[in-house]
């Protein structure tokens, strides 16, 4: 005897056939239910609604549609019921089609009898039952696998606490990672398993969730845990949810805990905040303020330090360019503004010094440095920079300049009298006929000239740096100046022959003496740095816009990596065998400053060991000069 009840649906448009089927069915030794649908559509609907049919018999002939379409539709809808198609006499082919479409079997209803029907039903039923059990088992196993993977591998920590004492029922590896892998927590209440969390508010939260059934969420909550066996407390930060587990009868059986350990993020954020605070502190201490000019919004953002540097109350800067403009010294604003706008236009970094006036009227010096930052499309997006209060430095520089100015001026006075005495003495000896003594005095006079030139250089550097170098410009014959200097220098140079290669030149506009000073400097350098050569070539070349002068020597030369440094202050070339050449290293710096101020260019071409060619070019036309460096103050010193 079989205890199982087989639920059967018959889809059959012929009532007689239904009755016949019903009769045969009643004779079978099985427990069953039978339901009947007369049309294709109602049959499908029935199967969709009621899923506990085990078997569906469908007639081939169903009005306009047929049984094979029915089978196909049932299969395409993924309905679980097994289908047997009923066919007429000799419709073997149809039966095979039905099986191909997904039917379990086909049955010839004209030859219906109890024995064959019983066989068809039983076989199909057993076969599908076995298959569906397998299927369910596979699904269950798969679900279990998925769940355990989630549980085991999830970066989130998960634990289940049972009962009012919050006893650990299960916990995943991430949870152990949080609390420390050495612990044995299962079947222990939280307070026993993690005694250190007492008074850290967690137990109270769990109690509340258990009592009320309302979930509890926390973000970046700090928990101190003994994560290692040695028992030191460690700070961790967690985001978590306490989710009550509510059974069907509304009874709360426990709490599902899941969350994330966000310690790394929190710690790095705290570190960032700390470093920003340190930067702020440093800015405060160093009198540095930062600004940011957002071009698209035309807005300027200042740090609070910047407001104190500008002597205005905290929070009073309104973010406009104009507000800054008003704080800058009227004499300096044009240059400052031009520099900033040029930086934006050329998208280049800038450095500028300018004065500002505090609301109390005091004048302060600012050094501003910044750069342009671009967006993804390489469009200039904002200017970021710093302002540094350099008032104190400026005062010291001024003091240094004044000191050097006075000191070198004071040095000139004794040098002048030494030279004068020496010359008088030389004259006396010459008149007496003591030629040897007179010659000694000539040599002394040459040394005094050297000393005097060094002092002159010091004075010039001081003037360049304080913006007090004066120029007296006029039109003059360039070649005439070159000839004059060459004659004079050839006079004092015994070893080197100065060879002239001069183009016909037009007049040049500039300070004749200062330009002469540059030519003299280049030639005396050429002599100085080619001790083993015997000639120097001096050439002028005229182009449409400018004249170029070059001084070529055949001396020690300058290594490539040092060539762009020669025009810097205090640069000196060291010769072979570590020889050094005397000098302060100021001559080329002064020369380059003079040429720059005259609107020209100065450069060097050199091969180490073969010699150097120093060149400068000057425009014929008087050019409006760039405001010298960015230092703007220019008062006369009292002793000039």
């Amino acid at each position, binding site marked *: 005897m079989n205890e199982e009840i087989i639920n059967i649906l018959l889809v059959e448009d012929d009532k007689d056939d239904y009755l016949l089927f019903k009769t045969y069915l009643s004779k079978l030794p099985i427990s069953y239910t039978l339901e009947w649908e007369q049309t294709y559509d109602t049959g499908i609907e029935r199967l969709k609604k009621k899923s506990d049919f085990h078997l569906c018999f469908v007639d081939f002939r169903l009005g306009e549609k047929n049984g094979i379409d029915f089978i196909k539709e049932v299969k395409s809808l993924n309905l679980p019921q097994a289908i047997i198609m009923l066919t007429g006499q000799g419709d073997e082919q149809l039966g095979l089609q039905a099986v191909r479409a997904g039917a379990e079997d086909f049955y010839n209803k004209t030859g219906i009898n109890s024995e064959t029907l019983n066989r068809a039903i039983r076989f199909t039923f057993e076969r599908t039952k076995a298959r569906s059990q397998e299927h369910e088992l596979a699904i269950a196993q798969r679900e279990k696998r998925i769940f355990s993977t989630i549980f085991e591998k999830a970066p989130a920590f998960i634990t289940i606490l049972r009962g009012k004492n919050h006893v650990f029922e299960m916990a995943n590896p991430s949870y152990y990672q949080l609390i420390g892998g050495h612990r044995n927590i299962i079947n222990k209440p939280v307070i026993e398993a993690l005694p250190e969390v007492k008074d850290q508010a967690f137990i109270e939260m769990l109690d509340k969730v258990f009592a009320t059934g309302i979930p509890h969420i926390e973000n970046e909550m700090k928990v101190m845990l003994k994560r290692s066996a040695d028992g030191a407390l460690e700070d961790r930060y967690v985001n978590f949810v306490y989710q009550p587990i509510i059974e069907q009868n509304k009874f709360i059986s426990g709490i599902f805990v899941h969350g994330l350990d966000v310690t790394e993020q929190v710690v790095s954020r705290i570190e960032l905040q700390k470093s920003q605070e340190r930067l702020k502190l440093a800015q405060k201490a160093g009198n540095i303020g930062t600004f940011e000019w957002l071009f698209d919004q035309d807005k300027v953002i200042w740090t609070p330090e910047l407001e104190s540097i500008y002597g205005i109350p905290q929070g009073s800067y309104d973010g406009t360019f104009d507000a800054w403009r008003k704080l800058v010294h009227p004499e300096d604003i044009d240059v400052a503004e031009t520099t900033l706008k040029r930086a934006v236009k050329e998208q280049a970094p800038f450095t500028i010094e300018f004065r500002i006036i505090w609301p109390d009227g005091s004048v302060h010096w600012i050094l501003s440095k910044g750069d342009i930052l671009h967006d993804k499309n390489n469009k200039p997006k904002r200017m970021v920079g710093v302002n540094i209060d350099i008032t104190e430095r400026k005062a010291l520089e001024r003091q240094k300049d004044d000191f050097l100015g006075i000191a070198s*001026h004071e040095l*000139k006075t004794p*040098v*002048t009298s030494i030279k*004068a005495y020496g010359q*008088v003495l030389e004259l006396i000896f010459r008149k007496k006929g003591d030629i040897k003594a007179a010659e000694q005095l000539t040599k002394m006079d040459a040394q005094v000239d050297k000393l005097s030139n060094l002092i*002159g250089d010091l004075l010039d550097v001081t003037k360049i740096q304080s913006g007090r170098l*004066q120029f*007296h410009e006029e039109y003059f014959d360039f070649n005439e100046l070159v000839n004059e200097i060459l004659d004079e220098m050839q006079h004092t140079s015994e070893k080197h022959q100065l060879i002239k290669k001069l183009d016909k030149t037009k007049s040049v506009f500039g300070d004749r003496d200062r330009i002469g000073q540059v030519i003299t400097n280049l030639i005396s350098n050429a002599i100085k740095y080619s001790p083993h050569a015997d000639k120097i070539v001096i050439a002028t070349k005229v182009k449409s816009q400018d004249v170029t002068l070059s001084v070529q020597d055949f001396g020690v030369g300058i290594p490539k990596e040092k060539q762009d440094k020669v025009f810097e202050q205090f640069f000196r070339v060291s010769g072979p065998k570590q020889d050094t050449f005397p000098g302060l290293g100021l001559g080329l710096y002064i020369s380059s400053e003079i040429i720059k101020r005259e609107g020209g260019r100065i450069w060097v071409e050199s091969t180490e060991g073969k010699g150097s060619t120093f060149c400068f070019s000057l425009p014929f036309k008087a050019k409006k000069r760039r405001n010298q460096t960015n230092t703007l103050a220019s008062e006369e010193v009292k*002793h000039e």
Partner: protein
Amino acid sequence: MAKKRIMVADDDPSIVDAISMMLEFEGYEPIPTVDGTIVKEMQDELPDLLLLDIWMSGEDGKDICKRLKKQESTKHIPVIMISASRDVEKSAKESGADDFIAKPFEMEVLLSKVKKYLQTK
């Protein structure tokens, strides 16, 4: 022929001394002074030429020169300005001096300038 009288005004005595020696050698009569006020207030026994330092203590050489060049009695006296600054040319022109010399100077240059202005007088 009487010796030409040249006033040498500088606030540094050694310079005044050295220049005076040079002038004596050339047969001039130097009138040395380190006091700017004397130069400014000169009335009688006017020199034939003035060598004037730009930076006199107490008195600005430029002011002295301007004043002398305005006064009817002194404006004919040639003034050669002397200064340690390379910018002496500008100061000399502005204050109406006839010529200038930068310190330290070559004796020949000084003497030739002196000679030139005494001849043209």
